[in-house]
């Protein structure tokens, strides 16, 4: 059996969907952050797979940038989550629903 680029694309898509689903169903802010990371990594895998298929280094370069962006997002996100947890320990995502309507 040959492992073609298609397999990687499917795996990337699966990671993306798993991450997305996780974000929809989990309540823990930290887990939600991890889900976003999972989605981004699914995309990363897609990029690398395409770069492989197109024989083009560009797709791999993109991954570097995405990693850095993801790190910056995580840092900001963690900062926000910690700021909230320090004031209201045990906060879940659903507790953040004062603004609505």
């Amino acid at each position, binding site marked *: 059996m040959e492992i073609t680029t298609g397999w990687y*694309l499917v795996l*990337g898509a699966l990671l*993306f969907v798993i*991450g*997305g689903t996780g*974000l929809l169903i989990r309540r823990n*802010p930290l887990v*939600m*952050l991890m889900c*976003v990371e999972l*989605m*981004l990594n*699914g*995309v990363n895998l*897609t*990029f690398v*797979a*395409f770069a492989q*298929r*197109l024989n*083009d*280094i*560009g*797709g791999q*370069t*993109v991954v570097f*940038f*995405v990693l850095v*962006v993801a790190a*910056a*997002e995580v840092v*900001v*996100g963690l*900062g*926000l*989550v910690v*700021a*909230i947890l320090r*004031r*209201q320990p045990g906060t879940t*995502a659903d507790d*953040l*629903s*004062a*603004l*609505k*309507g």
Partner: protein
Amino acid sequence: MFAPQLLGFVSPSINWWALLPQMILLGAALLILLLSSLAPRRSSTTFATVTTLSAAITAYFVSIGLWYDVEREGASSSIASAFGVDGFSIFFTMLILIALAITALLSHHYLDREGIDPPEFHALLLCSAAGAIVMAAANDLVVMFLGLEALSIAIYVMIAMHSRRSEARESAVKYFVLGAFSSAFLLYGIALTYGATGSTNLVHVREYLDAVVFRDQHMLMAAMGLLLVGLSFKVAAAPFHFWAPDVYQGAPSPVTGWMASIAKAAGFAALLRIFFAAFASHDSDWSPVVAVLAFVTLVVGAVMAILQTDVKRMLAFSSISHAGYVLVAVQSASNDGTAAALFYLFTYTLMVLGTFAVVGAMGSDDDHPLTRYAGLGRSKPLIALSLTALLLAQAGVPTTSGFIAKFQVISAAVSNQSYFLAGAAMVTAVIGAFMYLRIIMTMYVVDDDESGPSPVWHWTTSTVVLGTVIFTMVLGLVPQFLIEFAEQAVPILIRG
């Protein structure tokens, strides 16, 4: 391709002049951080405001020079075609710089009042502006993504800086989580575009789509859909708008103004560049989808605004409805429509900044009940008059720039034969006007014995309000120069 092939490296030709505006902004951000860390104590607000203002003004003059360059030598692009040097880029650069100057001014008093660290706020604001410029000028999807993230991440922090308020924290987390979620969609769209066309560069994408009879339609469609999702989120188009009211309400008012104006404008810049310019050959595919989004957005914005009692929330839904109008222009997929969208964004940006300048000065951001405005017409007649003018402009009343903007959008839709959408736009304009009238009535119609609110006005705020009002009214009478400006700024993709 985005990065040069590594063997036998030749540095891509770089038009430094074209990168200067955002470099000035980043330089100013670094300068503020450096000096504020060297300063022994908490540094003054004035220093940060003045630095930001000077940076914005300097960069603005550079942009004027660039505009004449482009006019003389034609559009081009820089850094291996990743960065467009064209009327479109400069149009948005100027718009962003104007908004930056205004936001710097109106946050001046606000930061002092609310006890937010000025240097950090301004440094983030500058980064955010630079990100917005990069996003609007990028000819490459990855560069665009980086710009978008720079814009957004700075905004996440700017919202959260008001951290003693739980609303601010909540709104920051909401914007962050959902923003990251939608960024992932956008990024996936970029990846699929890359896979389908072999490049993330829009110039290349366009040439490829024009030249090749396409085999992998499905992947391209998926790419378009995902890109549309990511950008629709940024511009707060329904059904990707849910975050906007909550976040606008919780965020500090100057940041809300910045989000409502520039985050939205930059999102539309990207939308236009990607869809109108790069995917031009597939407009029969994306235009109907955008039309549906526009319709839903118009209806949701107008209808939900009626139900609100919090002024910031009302304005949030109104800004959703404005996004619907711009989408009406975008879906026409014509030069007229795009020019109308640009005109709309320009006038809307100034209106909304002026409005949020008043809102921010009206007092604490914990809540903004409509009742707080009762009697403003008596206690602060000039401010009330200005707010009235700005709100009427948002409602699209004639002699204001808002009318011209709506008029152009609708006429673009009519000439595109989107009669249904044009009709819907007019109906929602009627519904939406009710909400603005409600605020105006609250300010003026009060019992005699009731004294209106008398918030503290700093001259910077007054300057901003007055400036935006004058601009709005003058443009309603003589809109020609901005219309021509917008017509010359319709995006084009040029290999450079």
